[in-house]
């Protein structure tokens, strides 16, 4: 997994609450058996107009937000389906950091599995940034994982919380499965103990 340390870049605004993973990537793009190439499906229905052409008003179709690595959005981002295709599609588009006042649990978790940083900031800070993004072309933010801060162009810093274990894994780009497998003997000992307590959980279901 690619480590995440610090990121400075353009910010793309999605000014909506409760953006669900069905909107981030609709069902027809879930038929893939790969993790890559999902950018084509990102916000597919919102990108288009009724006649099927690209909607020039949608933020992803505006030249000024092209190449942005930071997505700024509103409360409860990523709710609904557990599909990891949602962070895969965002990553494929180039987003490595998503800033919102709050996230849905499964989506938040899925981001860390892919070297992406979801940042939960105070709603007022997000609102102020949203106004700036929309009014100031070329607006950039700096997201620093080590100090857990987001810095605006005028130097205002906002602090964000992150679980220390997740922070460490992301910062160093660690393989989560490899980490767990270091405890193989602990897992085996648990299984032996548990099998004595609850043998019905260890009957072969095949």
């Amino acid at each position, binding site marked *: 997994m690619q480590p995440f340390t610090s990121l400075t870049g353009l910010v793309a605004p999605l000014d*909506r*609450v*409760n953006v*669900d993973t*069905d*909107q981030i990537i*609709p*069902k*027809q793009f*879930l*038929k*893939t*058996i*790969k*993790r890559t190439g999902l950018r084509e499906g990102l916000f597919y*229905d919102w990108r288009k107009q009724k006649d099927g052409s690209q909607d020039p008003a949608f933020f992803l179709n505006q030249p000024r937000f092209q190449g942005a690595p930071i997505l700024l959005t*509103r*409360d*409860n981002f990523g*709710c*609904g*389906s*557990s*599909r*990891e295709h949602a*962070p895969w599609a965002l990553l494929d588009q180039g987003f490595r950091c998503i800033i919102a006042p*709050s996230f*849905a*649990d*499964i989506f938040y*978790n*899925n981001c860390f*599995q*892919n070297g992406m940083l979801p940042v939960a900031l105070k709603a007022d800070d997000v609102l102020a940034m949203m106004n700036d993004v929309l009014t100031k072309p070329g607006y950039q933010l700096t997201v620093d994982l080590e100090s857990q801060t987001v810095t605006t162009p005028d130097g205002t810093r906002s602090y964000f919380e992150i*679980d*220390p*274990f997740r922070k460490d894994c992301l910062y160093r780009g660690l393989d*989560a*499965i490899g*980490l*767990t*497998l270091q*405890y193989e003997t*602990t*897992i085996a000992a*648990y*299984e032996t103990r*548990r099998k004595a*307590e*609850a*043998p*019905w*959980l260890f*009957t*072969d*279901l*095949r």
Partner: protein
Amino acid sequence: MAAQTLFDKIWETHLVRAEPDGTTLLYIDRQLVHEVTSPQAFEGLKLSGRRPRRPDATLAVPDHNVPTTDRTLGITDLLSAKQIQTLEENCRNFGITLFGMNDIRQGVVHVIGPEQGFTLPGTTIVCGDSHTSTHGAFGALAFGIGTSEVEHVLATQCLVQKRPKTMEIRVDGVLPSLCSAKDVILAIIGKIGTAGGTGYVIEYTGSAIRALSMEGRMTLCNMSIEAGARAGMVAPDEKTIAYIKGRPLAPKGELFEQAVRAWQQLTTDANASYDATVALKAEDIAPQVSWGTSPGMVIGVDGKVPDPRTMTDENTRKATEQALAYMGLTANMPITEITIDKVFIGSCTNARIEDLRLAASLAKGKHVAKTVHAMVVPGSGLVKQQAEQEGLDRLFKEAGFEWREAGCSMCLAMNADVLQPGERCASTSNRNFEGRQGAGGRTHLVSPAMAVAAAVEGHFVDIRNWA
């Protein structure tokens, strides 16, 4: 020992190791696998040369992509076919049990787990699917995960977790006639919002919850995710034990007796406390209809479409305006005046035998309105078989409903069952997001009883005064 909640008890018995900062390695007893969220997990195993730790505790089934029409014809959608074929190959290569598309035991993953006795009290159960919360109905800790975590559980039988908070949702009293578990959970989401449960595991308690059947409790726990919760659960009781007994994968004989003794301990201690508590009175719960594009946008059938002009919170007002524009509804319109084009009875929320029995009994002797197309999709091959043995299929067909093969179908429209742009559907499924049932389609979430009444009348009606 300190007083514990049901959640605490399950959490404690599944700790493999815990760091001082609370990072926990949690043991996962069972994993369910379907075709959409697993191919990349199996690919990851292959690339890293890893094998599943407990293929004996893993069960796979295709459900999202399967056609609900005659399956002997195969799948015409090549991508869907490829995904199902990939699941078959992965299960063969990794020694995992698969209920294939033409197996009578095939069905929606959250219907077949309980049906087979795979779902047991006190267990930890995961699946790459957010509606895994369904299995909490048995007093299990069951939650949805992403594909990377599917791979993690396959390789290690564990997940790295932080302890979630606990919320009690207490529903006391007696539900009005023909109001169901679906109305209870929709009313709860309407009350606490789609992020109200974020960070929590919900335990549903109270006399109205105890009175629900196992299938009702599954409907309830199923939509916990729509309230933002990681999981929902109901403590096991005599109904739970009676439901499990004799199921194909349930423990047998002395092992069953031993399990039952353990399951009887799975209750929240009298003086245990939750991090949050919410209470509802069952008598206040009217049949619910969602009017917007988020499950929290829901109201009693005797209500009206909300008016964004009366809303003070800007986020709520804007979201309401967007929802009404998408749904093609006007503020203050009575819910009963909303006319529909389609009816879908199915999904992991409401496609079990009791749902179909109730729906068929209400459809009996009536007919679907000329302007409506209605379909019934059983939750599994075995539910379908049972329904046919009871003659429910005949009642549905005589009333003008289509009777289909089992699968997820129009809940998420990954197969051929799709709404056309602008079509309006009364659906017993769980999500009314934009485009969920087809691009431009408009979904109203309701109970099976409400769906039947809407199919017959062509618009929503108050089921309490109908039939």
